[in-house]
């Protein structure tokens, strides 16, 4: 099983390289798919990322990388974990217990010495749950030492607390296995330096995120910032101010795999300079404004953990919901969109994208699509566009971490995107 997966991954990587080179060779005008970029960067600050079907072979538009974790200070007590989902919509490294079976990592405890547990809710009522431990994280030649990470436990030592599950423990869906998560873990690289912030420093705030479980009964814990899960990049000794995600463009019918780069740092090395990319600063919740048809969607976000472009709804777009893939768009002919994104710094820029028939795209068996779209909710009260993986294809996308150095001396107190 493991052997087979490795072979597939290797083949995928080779195919991705070939696809990338082909694109470079034929990409003069950008064509219909992508800006003229080189997605295969080299340097000691660069990790390889790949969009493929993931470890369960069924994840469309999943962006994965490999992360090595070690016991703090150790160079031998280490495990390299492949197929970790790269997620710019969260912060912190979370790994399935099954992915790090032989690694013993020290607990992170609260002020009373009790081991911290964490419960992360996702918007679809699913959750991950397990202890917070310390590890050294290695990616490319970068290291985040003694970093709080979460071990997503299967089976968990304690029952997940009902306060974390929208009080619907019977209806909540855990993502604590590779089958249910579709990945061996999540590498959270958002604008936020930590996954919670000051709200979790006092249990009295009642934020259902960090817990202690004395005598098996879990209660919300008070957790100082330093003990919360950080965006690991923020703890690097260099290249710590953000990342560049660079992925190739893909043709309208998709590709089986696309290989690109995750470069650490922004403007810290020759391979992560902003170049022509513009900085769009975000507001305190890491969102910006997207304008479409004269309507402003003020909580828009870019999220590599969202697998398609989620925006508006079927009724608004002319009843184009797929009949056999609910929630996806199936227009009879490809639809083209132009929207305008505006940062809090006033930077504006147009983003164009296409939405093709999802039924057709799924039927290709491919894994990577730049034209998959889906319903985001109750339009027009929906107040956001969710720019998922298709947005990243054929672009250099920079994520700036709040509180870190910004290239050009720009002010971005809550972080920024640049593209």
């Amino acid at each position, binding site marked *: 099983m493991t052997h087979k997966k490795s072979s597939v991954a290797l083949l995928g990587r080779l195919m991705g390289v070939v696809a990338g080179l082909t694109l470079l060779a034929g990409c003069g005008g950008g064509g219909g798919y992508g800006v003229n970029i080189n997605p295969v960067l080299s340097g000691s600050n660069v990790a390889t990322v790949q969009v493929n079907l993931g470890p369960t072979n069924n994840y469309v538009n999943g962006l994965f990388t490999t992360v090595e974790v070690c016991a703090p200070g150790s160079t031998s007590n280490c495990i390299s974990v492949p197929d970790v989902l790269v997620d710019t919509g969260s912060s912190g490294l979370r790994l399935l217990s099954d992915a790090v079976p032989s690694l013993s990592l020290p607990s992170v405890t609260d002020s009373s010495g009790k081991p911290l547990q964490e419960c992360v809710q996702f918007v679809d009522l699913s959750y991950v749950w397990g202890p917070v431990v310390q590890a050294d994280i290695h990616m490319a030649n970068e290291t985040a030492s003694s970093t709080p990470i979460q071990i997503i436990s299967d089976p968990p030592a304690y029952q997940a607390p009902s306060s974390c599950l929208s009080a619907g423990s019977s209806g909540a*869906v855990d993502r604590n296995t590779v089958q249910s998560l579709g990945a061996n873990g999540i590498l959270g690289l958002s604008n936020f330096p930590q996954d919670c912030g000051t709200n979790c420093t006092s249990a009295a705030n009642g934020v259902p995120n960090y817990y202690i479980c004395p005598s098996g009964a879990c209660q919300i814990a008070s957790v100082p910032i330093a003990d919360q899960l950080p965006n690991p990049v923020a703890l690097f000794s260099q290249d710590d101010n953000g990342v560049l995600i660079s992925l190739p463009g893909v043709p309208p019918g998709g590709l089986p795999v696309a290989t690109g780069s995750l470069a650490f740092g922004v403007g810290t090395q020759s391979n992560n300079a902003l170049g022509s990319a513009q900085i769009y600063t975000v507001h305190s919740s890491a969102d910006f404004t997207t304008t479409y048809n004269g309507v402003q969607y003020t909580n828009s976000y870019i999220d590599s953990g969202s697998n398609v472009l989620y925006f508006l709804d079927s009724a608004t777009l002319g009843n184009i919901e797929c009949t056999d893939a609910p929630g996806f768009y199936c227009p009879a002919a490809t639809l083209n969109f132009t929207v305008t994104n505006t940062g809090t710094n006033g930077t504006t820029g147009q983003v164009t994208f296409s939405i093709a028939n999802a039924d057709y795209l799924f039927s290709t068996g491919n894994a990577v699509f730049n034209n998959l779209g889906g319903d985001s909710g109750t339009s027009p009260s929906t107040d956001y566009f969710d720019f998922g993986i298709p947005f990243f294809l054929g672009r250099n996308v920079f994520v700036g971490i709040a509180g870190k150095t910004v290239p050009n001396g720009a002010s971005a107190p809550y972080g920024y995107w640049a593209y």
Partner: protein
Amino acid sequence: MKTMLGVLLILALGAVPAGAVLGEYESSVSLDQQYLRAEIRVTTAQGYKFHQITTPNGAVVREYISPEGKVFGIAWQGPFIPDLQQLLGSYFTQVQQAAQSRTQRRGGPFVVRTNDFVFASGGHMRSYHGSAYVPSLLPKNVPAEVVR
């Protein structure tokens, strides 16, 4: 002490009942423990009113009330997802059922549409937002998009 503060705040703002549940009468639900530390504001609009409940940790919940006094919509925004079972009441089972089915939608917004219930939950870590409404309870001439 916290309870005292909460009660004082609410008294100062006019003894507004909070913690109302979707589809039920606003007066049918007693003051909710979860919101005792919250600040509550009532806004009257054309054909409806809404309670805006702001908690100290930055979460905002709005409850939309029809002239008949029924909660026809709920919206939320904040650094974590509020207790949806509490807010949605009997409608929560429809959300639970939908959550069980696995589709190719990954990591994006969660949308549930049935004959008389529309629910959408979106956002990302530290910035969640969503809304739910009952079409048949919408007051006359009030469009669904006011629920936001």
